[in-house]
């Protein structure tokens, strides 16, 4: 049986995803947590992990170089990849929000919105019937309203601390975000056995986790 390749997001979601896999009975080596390698093989489980930028996980899975991946719903909404979204892993909870400086209004003539999620942002404002100009930034989005680049930002908010420390407030809630297990459509059929097992084990862990927190 050929090896299963899983695309993991580096950074924020990574450790939670690793913990979830361990809880589901997958034996992952300790070096996993601090390694700088981009490809890690776990022969005992017949699994290979690739470590990707969160925004790129969907790309690897859509092209089939990874069979499954763990990606935030924010990324899925932004990228609209042709992949199966099979399971809500309920980790890395946060939400997408519109934020800005308190007591400010959007510019009437040419309102500007800075974001890492141009597709999500333009879709959201279009649905609200507002015409805005989207400015694409790659990080530190909170800077934009502070120095006058944009009236509003669209970004993920988890604790709200970054907003608060920079004197920003949340205006609108766009969508709740959690991480999802995504599967390549071909792998979904060709490697159905190991993938079904992965889904089943993860689903069980997620379900148990839910009961714990209730």
């Amino acid at each position, binding site marked *: 049986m050929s090896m299963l390749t899983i695309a993991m997001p580096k950074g924020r979601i990574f450790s939670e995803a690793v913990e979830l896999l361990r809880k589901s009975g997958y034996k992952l080596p300790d070096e996993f947590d601090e390694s700088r390698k981009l490809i890690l093989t776990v022969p005992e489980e017949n699994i290979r992990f690739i470590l990707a930028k969160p925004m790129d996980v969907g790309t690897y899975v859509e*092209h089939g170089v990874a069979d499954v991946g763990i990606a935030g719903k924010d990324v899925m909404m932004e990228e609209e990849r042709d992949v199966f*979204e099979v399971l*809500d892993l309920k980790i890395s909870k946060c939400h997408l929000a519109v934020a800005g400086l308190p007591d400010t209004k959007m510019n009437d003539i040419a309102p500007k919105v800075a974001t890492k999620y141009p597709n999500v942002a333009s879709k959201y404002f279009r649905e609200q019937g507002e015409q805005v100009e989207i400015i694409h930034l790659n990080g530190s989005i909170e800077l934009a309203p502070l120095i006058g680049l944009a009236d509003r930002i669209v970004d993920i908010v988890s604790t709200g601390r970054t907003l608060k420390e920079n004197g920003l407030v949340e205006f609108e809630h766009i969508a709740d975000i959690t991480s999802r297990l995504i599967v390549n459509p071909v792998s979904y059929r060709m490697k159905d056995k190991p993938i079904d097992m992965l889904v089943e084990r993860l689903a069980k862990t997620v379900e148990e986790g839910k009961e714990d927190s209730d």
Partner: protein
Amino acid sequence: MFMFEKPLGMRDTLPGLYVIKESVRKKMMNVIESWGYQFLETPTLEFYETVGVQSAIQEQQLFKLLDRQGHTLVLRPDMTAPIARIAASKLMKESLPLRLAYSANVFRAQQHEGGRPAEFEQIGIELIGDGTISADAEAIALMIYALKNTGLKDFKISIGHIGFINALFGEILGKEERAEKLRRYLYEKNFVGYREHVKRLSLSTIDKERLLRVIDLKGGIEKADEASSLVACDSGKKALEDLKQLLIQLRAYEVDQYIKLELNIVSHMSYYTSVIFELYANGVGLPIGNGGRYDHLLEKFERPAPATGFGIRLDNLLEALGDLKLNKDRYCIIFSRENRQEAFRYANKLRKEGKQVVMQDISGIDQIDRFTGQFTDIYYFLGKPGKVRE
């Protein structure tokens, strides 16, 4: 401005790939012809109003242009609609069923980044005028035998039935717009969204459970029985009975090991009407081919007839076949002017033997070694006429 780049999604087929493509195409075509299907060609450009609107391809993927009278034209996005147009007009007098086949380039504009061709070759068949399950079985079996002849081994076919999902959704949800939302989630393969949406619907626990179980309906023939316990209406039961019949017939063709049921497959338009299938192979991230029954397409061309067929994407098939090395032997005759005739006669002798022979005037090349390196063998016709050196 001089443009060196190609438009997004357009690809060149260089000589090395060309011979491989040709050989794989021939292998498929031979099998299709041996099953009695007749190949045909249709124009690259069609009217948007006739072929563009009726095709299964989404509007935003069509390449459109205007002719001199101002009609909107499309580069054909698939071959099924053009063949339906022909079947409904020129082949009107032929008696049904018709067995037609094609091998042609189709065009679909890409919205996202590279890595996806916007023009690619499709090889396929249309079996028009036979509404029986036997016709569906023939289409699927022929597809498998054509693929096997190319040397493809590791592949699977997922079969579903539009009638089952429609019946189940109709029974439980009633209104079409409620069904449409759920169908959209299945089409986008967003099972998380599907589950959440079902949980939010105001339905009994039993009905919710019926809808949720749709996601797990994949596997062998037993899944058809499992699904049968979820629907009550005749059309739903009939769809599943048809699927079972189809699987039994595919056993007679000895291809059932390639088949899996996947009862939550839906199509994005009301194009396919019952049996629908997709073809997957290891090593390629996209389906290699797909097909199904489209019983309402021909009536849009005013000649109602049931029809089924499949189309294989040659580019994805080549990817699945992996590294094919197909170097044909090429020979070279290098001649000087005074030996032209003798060289030509010798070249023709070799060509009649079926060899590929290049004739090259020695004064036309600078670096003989570099040039001759690409050939299997070189013959020299130089100096005093009559002397052959090898």
